[in-house]
């Protein structure tokens, strides 16, 4: 009890105690409750779904098994694929547009402050507002589709939010194999980086696990079939409209991040590079982009967790029932509150939490580690 003698520590502890308790109950307590609910059959028996004192039985991971391999849950699997493509294109779009705008503004053009505000402005809107505006603009008969007529071209015919076209189709049964390939490729890259950096042990571990995973993929991985039939999933072209709106909203934010990063690079560094005879392109490639890497990482984390949780934007743009633009968060809402399948909804929620955690936790870990090092 030595620490209690130090009054500052005691006061400090007392001050954060309320928020600790509240966090414990309202965040972690409910996460555990949701997890527990997802392991039950709450909602399977209609008589118990909404009764005052529902009788709930523990059924283990049955809900999860159904979501990934059940016959009627094809929609959930398509939603996962949708989220994957949405996340990739949303992050790429925001980073690309944001970096471009930041580089232009960094050169201090005339009216820089004015343009900065304009580019940053969409971020201050709520996703509901953005969604409503873009819903109008992307109507098949009007808005964006009418743009070509301004320059005399025929008007566009693309059904932005309701197209049923799907590209890059992959059977759900091939996913374990493909995932294994991707993971092993990443591990090989880690191994190469480790060997170059002289970390022999790390390199051996990474290359060893890559070899193991590859071995598994080519032997057992091909025989592991979640479904008894081929179920194609791919990128729904209807998502292009959603990605457009989301990038419009969030690229201003990435621009602000990059602009801060660019301003933080000392002028001496650039001048030194120029004195050494670096061209403008080499300056960016060798000096500026590497220095912006930490900002890219933070931006990716923030955008990544926004895109995994996205709900309101799509709800406002296409409605909850528009299957071509469905995502797990919307499906969770429909499953729980319309279909009364409360346990299955909780399972979808837990899968979403895991996905977001997979993005956030490594980031937090690396941040904390670097802080300790300092």
């Amino acid at each position, binding site marked *: 009890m030595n620490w209690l003698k130090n009054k500052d520590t005691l006061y400090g502890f007392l001050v954060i105690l309320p928020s600790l308790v509240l966090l414990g109950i309202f965040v972690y307590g409910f996460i555990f409750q949701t997890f527990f609910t997802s392991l039950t059959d709450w909602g399977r028996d*209609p008589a118990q*779904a909404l009764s005052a004192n529902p009788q709930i039985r523990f059924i283990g991971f049955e809900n999860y098994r159904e979501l990934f391999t059940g016959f009627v849950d*094809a929609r959930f699997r398509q939603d996962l694929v949708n989220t994957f493509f949405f996340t990739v294109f949303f992050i790429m779009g925001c980073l690309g547009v944001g970096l471009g705008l930041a580089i232009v503004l960094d050169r201090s053009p005339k009216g820089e402050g004015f343009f900065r505000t304009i580019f940053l402005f969409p971020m201050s809107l709520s996703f509901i507002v953005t969604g409503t505006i873009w819903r109008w603009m992307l109507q098949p008969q009007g808005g964006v589709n009418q743009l070509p007529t301004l320059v005399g071209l025929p008007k566009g015919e693309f059904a932005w939010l309701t197209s049923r076209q799907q590209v890059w189709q992959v059977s759900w049964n091939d996913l374990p194999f493909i995932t294994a390939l991707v993971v092993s490729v990443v591990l090989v890259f880690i191994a190469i980086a480790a060997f170059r950096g002289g970390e022999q042990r790390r390199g051996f571990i990474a290359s060893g696990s890559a070899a193991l995973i590859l071995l598994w993929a080519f032997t057992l991985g091909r025989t592991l079939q979640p479904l008894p039939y081929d179920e194609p999933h791919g990128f729904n072209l209807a998502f292009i409209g959603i990605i457009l709106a989301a990038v419009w909203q969030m690229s201003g934010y990435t621009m602000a991040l990059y602009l801060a990063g660019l301003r933080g690079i000392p002028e001496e560094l650039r001048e030194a590079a120029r004195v050494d005879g670096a061209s403008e392109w080499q300056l960016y490639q060798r000096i500026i982009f590497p220095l912006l890497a930490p900002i890219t990482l933070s931006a990716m984390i923030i955008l990544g967790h926004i895109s995994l949780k996205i709900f309101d934007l799509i709800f406002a743009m296409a409605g909850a029932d528009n299957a071509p633009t469905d995502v797990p968060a919307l499906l969770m809402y429909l499953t729980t509150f319309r279909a*009364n399948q409360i346990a299955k909804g909780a399972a979808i929620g837990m899968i979403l939490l895991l996905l977001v955690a997979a993005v956030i936790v490594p980031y937090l870990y690396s941040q904390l580690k670097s802080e300790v090092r300092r």
Partner: protein
Amino acid sequence: MRKFFLALVAAALGSLALAQSGKLEIFSWWAGDEGPALQALIDLYKKRYPNVEVINATVTGGSGVNARAVLKTRMLGGDPPDSFQVHAGQELIGTWVLADRMEDLTPLFNQEGWMNRFPKGLIDLLSYKGKIYSVPVNIHRSNVMWYNPAKLREWGVQPPKTWAEFLTTCQTLKGKGLEAPLALGENWTQQHLWESVALGVLGANDYTNLWNGKLRFNDPKVVAVWNTFGRVLDCANKDASGLSWQQAVDRVLEGQAAFNIMGDWAAGYMATTKQLKPGEGFGWAPAPGTAGVFMMLSDSFGLPKGVKNRANVLNWLRLVGSKEGQDAFNPLKGSIAARTDSDPSKYNAYLQSAMRDWKSNRIVGSLVHGAVAPESFMSQFGTVMEIYLSGRNAQAASNAAQAIATQVRLGQ
């Protein structure tokens, strides 16, 4: 002792006063266009019971999509509204009656003599194990086909009587340069079309058997429904998902399409918003193959267990089921009364024709609007539709529908 008596008297007086005053919270999704109809009912209630404070709790969102989620959180949280709007039939039974959250209203029906006032087919749809749990206030018809009489004369076609005839008419119209003879709107209107196709192809008996489990969804008869549905979809506009049901109706009125299958709230839209005369500006017929059958949906009110103002709710239900209440509400809402003795002179030409059919036709319930299947089936039917639309595979859709029906214990 004296104190005790005083307290008793005070309590007695208090409860007397409570019987006529207090509060009544009505939970519904009737905002916007439907608001005035609900207000007419509430005004009538206030006239009868001036001391009761009526709280009009509405949650916007067509067909109650948002209201139902709010209602569920309130019920689960132990704060039930005094009376709530719900689609009559399985939407109430499958969710709330099975969960033992509603009071049996059979005594009220007997007391008010309503057993003979409502058609038997309706009472059957409202009942669960011989007990009645809600009071229907209005009736809408789902299986109606709308058209523009002037345009049909111009094209020289008659409203088709069967789906086979519909497909022939569709080819004729396509030959005359009409790209999409059938106007269709967003997701739920596609399911709405499906139920009319199902009723037309299966007939009333098999359609009813679908919901009580006697006919399975993977039966060849139901696979045939999906095949017909696919051919009917080929007659429809390609941009359907982007249109609201009103925009789909507009296409018929403007002559871009010949037919639209929609519930009879479309008549309210065309008569009130578009100021068209029923029979001249727009015409109607039963959806192909469904003549003599009235596919109904109905809004109703029930009595949740454990409400604070039970006496006030019972008075509200008496009003909702009365001739006076229904004739005040329905002309404004654009629906017909659930009672068979309402006054036709208060309704327009379309509604009068619907009232005649309501009395004489065979009554079946709608799937999309909650009458024949519980919410758990209805909301997952969207997934079935998705499976069909993505691959146009009738057998796969039928299998998926049967899998969901088994999972949610449909008809058991």
